[in-house]
């Protein structure tokens, strides 16, 4: 933080002003003049919160993708299929047993096992051949997509959230003032807030594991120099297997989350593959904080775009990616290698 301020004083001040303005927009009731320009504050706050929760979902999907890429240089274009598969399996488990929470460990184990098979049988055979890996994973995603269409059909599924999560909750955010001066607080679906909190906890846990544990040390060393790590006696294939399984399992669990507050339909796999691509391109390949920032930016851009310029919301996402590519090709937090 200190070094960033020292290197870019002007940018830091601009960023600080932007963040302060944003906080002011969220925290205080709006004067009437601003409401005329931007519409009701409730709508704005809703869009911001949806953006943040969508960003949390994107983060869950993209963190596995970016870890796998950062460590193994594998581009797993079947990542979206793992997401959708996890969602479908989670739906079946939650429906059969009635326990929403039970779906998470089951999906994590099953999809993680599929990830193990993929890494052991497919990627290990073609290590270093990036193009071939990409093509093979494209083939796998086509096959998986059609098998899922075969089993679950074309209709959309929704994973039902349990009773203790459904319903709205009141947030301490003022949307407007009543005529008698009482503040009106924002209400928002509880399940989304819970998912947001869970994503933040998972993100912090991943950061802790990566930066404070022995396994994390191995992974970071592998990201920096794979060959050197292997030469110093670490059985790097086991690290690869663990990371790939973890990333796949995360994608599967994100599928349940996505199935709970959106829906599961064929085609969601490419949507989320694409979202994770854009997120990691913006955030920087192989960086967990980068994935978090990228996911937040893309989620916010998508939702705010949907509210204020519905036709061009997709273009916003794309424009952000193009600008990042043009000025910082390695991504916002990517290492300059």
């Amino acid at each position, binding site marked *: 933080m200190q070094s960033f301020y020292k290197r870019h004083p002007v940018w830091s001040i601009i960023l600080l002003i932007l963040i302060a303005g944003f906080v002011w927009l969220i925290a205080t009731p709006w004067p009437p003049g601003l409401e005329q320009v931007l519409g009701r504050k409730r709508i704005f706050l809703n869009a911001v919160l949806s953006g943040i929760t969508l960003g949390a979902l994107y983060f869950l999907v993209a963190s596995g993708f970016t870890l796998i890429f950062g460590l193994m*240089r594998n*581009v797993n274009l079947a990542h979206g299929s793992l997401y959708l598969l996890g969602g479908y399996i989670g739906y079946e488990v939650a429906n059969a047993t009635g326990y929403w929470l039970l779906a998470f460990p089951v999906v994590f184990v099953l999809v993680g096992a599929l990830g193990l098979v993929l890494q052991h049988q497919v990627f290990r055979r073609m290590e270093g*051949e*990036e*193009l*071939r890996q*990409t*093509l*093979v994973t*494209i*083939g*796998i995603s*086509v*096959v998986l*997509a*059609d*098998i899922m269409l*075969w089993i679950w059909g074309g209709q959309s599924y929704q994973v039902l959230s349990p009773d203790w999560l459904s319903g709205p909750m009141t947030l301490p955010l003022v949307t407007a003032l009543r005529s008698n001066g009482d503040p009106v607080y924002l209400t928002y679906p509880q399940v989304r807030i819970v998912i947001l909190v869970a994503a933040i906890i998972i993100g912090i846990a991943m950061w802790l594991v990566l930066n404070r544990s022995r396994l994390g040390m191995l992974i970071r060393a592998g990201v920096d120099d794979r060959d050197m790590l292997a030469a110093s006696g670490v059985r790097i294939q086991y690290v690869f297997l663990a990371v790939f399984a973890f990333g796949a399992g995360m994608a599967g669990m994100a599928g349940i989350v996505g199935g709970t507050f959106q829906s599961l339909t064929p085609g969601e796999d*490419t949507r989320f593959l*694409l979202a994770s*691509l*854009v997120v990691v*391109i913006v955030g920087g390949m192989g960086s967990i904080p980068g994935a978090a920032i990228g996911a937040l930016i893309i989620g916010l851009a998508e939702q705010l775009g949907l509210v204020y310029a*519905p*036709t*061009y*919301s*997709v*273009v916003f*996402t*794309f424009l952000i*990616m*193009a600008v990042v*590519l*043009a000025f910082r*090709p390695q991504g916002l937090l990517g290492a300059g290698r």
Partner: protein
Amino acid sequence: MTYVVRRAEPTQPTLFEKVPAIWWAVALLLIAMPLFASNFVLFQIFGWTFILGMIALSLMFLAGYGGMVSLIQMTVGAMAGYMVAILGTSGVPTISLGWPWWLYIPVAILIAAIFGTLVGALAVRTEGIYTIMITLAIASAFFYFTRQNYGLFNGYTGFNRVIPPELFGIDWRQATPFYYLTLTCAALSYFAVVYVSRSPFGLALQGVRDNPRRMGALGFSVTAHRILAYTFSSVIAAVGGILLVWQNSQVSPGTAGIPQVIDILVIAVVGGIKRPIGPFIGALIYVLLRVYSPDVLLAFGLSGERFKLVIGLGFLVIVFFSPDGVLGLWEKYKARRAAQTDPLRGGRS
């Protein structure tokens, strides 16, 4: 006394002799095709093969000679198709401008080429796998944008009744004229790619593919060569896209949806990405599978909707065992035959 020693003149092989006989046979077969093939085969199978082959050929040029795997080619084709629909005539008279054909076709190709060049300028900032991801992201942005934009691209429905102009009193959507139209365009783009690959530009491009740093040190502009390769391939993709729109007589966001974008890559890779003939072989295999696999699946008692599974599995098998596609398999077979018949390498003579 002087003796005049008459040596046999070293004979230059004529063009006719230089080309292997099998090529002449294929060319003759293709030209004579309308004599015995049905309209369905001409229009649906071979017309479609040539069109998809051209779009995949533009990818092959980028990937094989430039080392850049771009997923934007189908989108560039769709862009040209949209421009034909917008500038020319279509079933949506409120948007279509109704320009004459000699104006809208070049302008459509030009706009698509500019679009492809811009995407290329963005994509060449990245390498290898990143190029795939960025072009895929741009292609899907185009898909979602056309689906939501009603002012220019007419949103979800797109444009229907986009038909080729009636030139020389011929209806070009009839099977035989359309077959010859696509055959001519495909042959022209094939020879254009072969010619460019042997031109100084093509050779420099292949040098850039193999060792960009050395080419840069020799004074070639790496970025300019790569972007120019995008421009050239965009022109081929644009012609293919226009023909595709004429064949379907409609263009919609689904023309360049994500599955279609991926299909072009599948076609190029299955055929073989090292040589310009590969994409056409891949396209023929793909079209045959697309058209006939539902029947075959039904014959085995499976649902006909599973053709994507068949295509995906076939693609997977080919990529898994032979990264160079069908052509690579053929070359492996030839090499093994040669080794078997070569007495020096332990084969029977």
